[in-house]
C-alpha cells in the first residue's frame, strides 16, 4: 500500500492538472457500468468512488476520464480491476473490540435461550470479522447451535474468506484486539501457524456459509435472528443505505438484532422507528414488535 502511495506521488509530479472527475461524467460512467456489467455503484458515496478512480487513472497512466470509461466498457479484465478498486475490503479481526464486548453482554445471553439461530453478516470482506464472530460464539459455547451466513459482493474477497489464511504479521494486532474484546484463552488455539501465514481452525468453519450477495441489487436473504453489517453503509448514499436497511429489517425475525459499524447510525434513516437502541455507542439495535 505504501508502495502504491509512493508510485502515485511520483506520478502526480508529472501531471499537468489534477485528474478532476466532474460528477456528471462520474454518473455517466456508473450508468454505463451498470448497463453493461450489472454492478450498481450509482448510489455509492461519490467522494469515495472518485478517489478510487482518480488513483486508477494515475496508476494506469491514463490522463482522461473518458479514456478510462472506454477501456472499462471494452475490456472485461480491466473492469475486474475497477471492481476491486471500488470495493474497499479493509478489515481486521475484532475491529472495534468494544462492539464484540457489547455483543457478548447484550446479544449472546438472548442467543443462549434459542435452540438454534442464524446470523447474517453482510459485507464480510476477506472473512476476518466472520472468524472473529465464530471465535466469540465458540468461546460462549454456542457456535454449534448457530449458522453464520457471511456474504459480500466481491467474489475475490469471499474466496480469501473461504481459505481462512492470514499473514502472521497481523496476528499480534488481532490477538490484542481479541483480548480487548473479552477473549479469554490464548488466541493461538484458533489457528495453525505455517511459515508466514496462519490457517484458521476448521472447527470454526463448520457453521459458516460464505456466499455472494449484493446489497445494491439483491433482495432479502433468509430469515435470521441477527444481522451484522459493519463499515459497509458508510460507502452508500442515503438512498442505498435505506435500501439495505429495508432488506435487513425484512430479514430479521421477531425481536432480531441489528449491528452496525461504529460510525453508522439509524438516526438519519427512515428506519429509525423500526428499531430500538440496545447499545448506542456500539451500534446494537433491536427490531421492535408490531
Amino acid at each position, binding site marked *: 500500500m505504501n508502495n502504491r502511495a509512493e508510485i502515485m506521488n511520483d506520478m502526480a509530479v508529472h501531471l499537468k492538472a489534477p485528474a478532476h472527475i466532474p460528477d456528471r461524467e462520474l454518473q455517466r460512467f456508473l450508468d454505463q457500468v451498470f448497463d453493461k456489467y450489472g454492478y450498481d455503484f450509482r448510489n455509492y*458515496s*461519490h467522494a*469515495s468512488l472518485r478517489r478510487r478512480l482518480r488513483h486508477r487513472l494515475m496508476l494506469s497512466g491514463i490522463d482522461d476520464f473518458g479514456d478510462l470509461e472506454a477501456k472499462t466498457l471494452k475490456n472485461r479484465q480491466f473492469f475486474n480491476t475497477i471492481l476491486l478498486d471500488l470495493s*474497499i475490503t479493509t478489515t481486521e479481526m475484532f475491529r472495534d473490540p468494544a462492539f464484540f464486548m457489547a455483543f457478548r453482554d447484550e446479544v449472546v445471553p438472548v442467543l443462549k435461550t434459542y435452540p438454534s439461530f442464524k446470523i447474517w453478516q453482510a459485507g464480510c470482506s476477506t472473512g476476518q470479522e466472520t472468524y472473529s464472530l465464530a471465535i466469540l460464539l465458540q468461546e460462549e459455547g454456542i457456535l454449534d447451535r448457530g449458522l453464520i451466513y457471511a456474504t459480500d459482493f466481491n467474489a475475490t474477497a469471499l474466496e480469501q474468506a473461504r481459505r481462512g489464511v492470514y499473514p502472521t504479521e497481523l496476528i499480534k494486532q488481532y490477538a490484542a484486539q481479541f483480548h480487548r474484546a473479552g477473549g479469554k484463552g490464548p488466541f493461538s488455539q484458533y489457528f495453525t501457524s505455517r511459515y508466514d501465514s496462519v490457517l484458521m481452525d476448521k472447527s470454526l468453519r463448520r457453521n459458516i456459509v460464505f456466499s455472494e450477495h449484493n446489497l445494491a441489487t439483491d433482495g432479502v436473504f433468509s430469515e435470521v435472528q441477527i444481522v451484522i453489517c459493519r463499515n459497509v453503509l*458508510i460507502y452508500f448514499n442515503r438512498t442505498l443505505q435505506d435500501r439495505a436497511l429495508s432488506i435487513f429489517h425484512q430479514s430479521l425475525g421477531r425481536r432480531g438484532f441489528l449491528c452496525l459499524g461504529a460510525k453508522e447510525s439509524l438516526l438519519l434513516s427512515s428506519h429509525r422507528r423500526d428499531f430500538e437502541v440496545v447499545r448506542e455507542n456500539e451500534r446494537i439495535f433491536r427490531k421492535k414488535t408490531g
Partner: protein
Amino acid sequence: MKESLEKKRGKGTHKSLLPPGIQKDIQADAIVIGASAGGLRAIGLILSSLPASFPLPILVAQHIHPDMNSLSVTLMQEKCQIQVQEGIDKEPINAGVAYLAPPNYHLLVECDRTLSLSVDERVNFARPSIDVLFESASEVFESRLIGIVLTGANKDGAEGLKFIKANGGTAIVQDPNTAEYDAMPKAALEATSVDFVLPLEKIAPALLTVVGQRRQA
C-alpha cells in the same frame, strides 16, 4: 495585520510582505485544516480564535491515536466559541461548525456538501489522512476552498495542498520555524506554491480578514 501576512511565490522563495489587495480574489466557501504531531494544540489555537458567527465550515483532519476517541472533540469544544463536533457520515456541512475527522476514519466531502466517512486503507500511514480530506474537499469546492497545513512529523497534506492549488484554491502553511514539528509544513512548501506562510497565531486573524472582506463584498 495585512502587513504581517507573508506571501510565498513559487518554490522556495519567500516574499516578506503581502502586496496590497492580494486578498481581493480570495473567495471561499470552506476551510480544510490538516495537522499531525503537535496538532491538537495548534488547531485548538486557531479554532478558539474564531467568533461564533464565523461564516464558513471548517473540516479538520488531525492524526490521532484510534483510542483517543472523541475526547479531543470535547476538549476542543470547551475552548471554542464556534461549534466543534465529530464529522458524522452523510450529515450536511454547516457554516460556523468545525468538523473533526473521527479517529480511524477518513473524512470526505460529497458533491451535495454532505460528509462521508471511510475506512479505506491508510494513506501516508494515516487515517484520517489529510490528503484524502483535502482532495475530496477540493473537488467539491474547487477554487472556493482554503487549505491549511500545520505542524506534523510526516508529509501528509502536501499532495492535498498541491491539489487544492491546482484547482484554484488558496493554500496557507504554518511557518515551519514556528511549528512544533516542521516536517509537514516543509513538505507542503516543497510540493506546491503557497499563498501564505504564517506563524500559528497569525492564521486565525488572516482567516478573519479574508472572510470579513468577503462579507463586505
